[in-house]
């Protein structure tokens, strides 16, 4: 079993496009998106990224690394295979949750298929005089605008 964060617009469209976000390195197994930044020293990366996209009308899924959060089994850090399968499986689970809220997810199946086929890793180039993790974070608003233009 694995855990992850699912964020949905509280009120809004009955049909939502899906965004899947895989978190970066954390130092403890509790420091994962599903903590939603609520515990001491828990990262807010997951919370903020989820809020950014969900508040704009996306269904957001953010799997914890397999074995982290409240997941079972050994931690599979930087294991691309389980990272992809966990991402795809959380998409499936999130569809069930969304359906209970009378919300459908647009292209969730295609998204899961793409993850299984290509994995979830994408090279990112550092921009500006900031650390690479900040570079990634700063790209999120641009990605949001890009996704919004895909329609």
């Amino acid at each position, binding site marked *: 079993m694995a855990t992850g964060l699912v964020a949905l617009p*509280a009120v809004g469209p009955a049909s939502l496009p899906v*965004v899947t976000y895989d978190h*970066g390195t954390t130092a403890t197994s509790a420091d994962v998106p599903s903590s939603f930044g609520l515990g001491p020293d828990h990262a807010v990366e997951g919370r903020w990224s989820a809020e950014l996209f969900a508040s*704009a009308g996306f269904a957001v899924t953010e799997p914890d690394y397999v074995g982290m959060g*409240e997941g079972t089994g050994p931690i599979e850090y930087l294991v691309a295979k389980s990272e992809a399968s966990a991402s*795809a*499986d959380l998409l499936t689970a999130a569809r069930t949750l969304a359906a209970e809220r009378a919300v459908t997810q647009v292209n969730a199946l295609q998204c899961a298929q793409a993850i299984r086929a290509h994995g979830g890793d994408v090279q990112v180039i550092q921009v500006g005089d900031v650390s690479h993790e900040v570079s990634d*974070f700063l790209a999120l608003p641009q990605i949001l605008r890009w996704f919004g233009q895909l329609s």
Partner: protein
Amino acid sequence: MHVSTGHVSTGHESTDPETGSAAGAPTPPSGKPWRTALAGLLLLGTAGGMMAYGAPSRAAVPPHSQPAHSQPAHSQPAHSQAAQEGTLVSATLLRQVSAKSVRAELAGARLAPGAPALGGGEVRYGVDAYRVAYRTVDANGR
């Protein structure tokens, strides 16, 4: 997408003025030391991903009725391991954050002092956040 560690200290829990629930709005890094130095070393080669297709529909619907605060297990017969993958085990509503609170939070959402914030200019809805437990397999298919 190569993602960040985001190791910033979280602030105290606050009450959401619109929902009355604890918003738990985190604060930008302040007094607490970051773990970025350690995490930064570990992060080299970190995998991350983000995928999306389509864009939000503009058709609005009424508020979703009674989101479950903690839902029981969604068990299904285990015909095969493949059939179990993606099964929703539980969904726990962590927070309901109003649009106003999200906007304020993102306006100050920065991972480094002096870095630009994510910004709340695109906020249109409040956010319901769930911790979801689900079935999946490890790298060995177990």
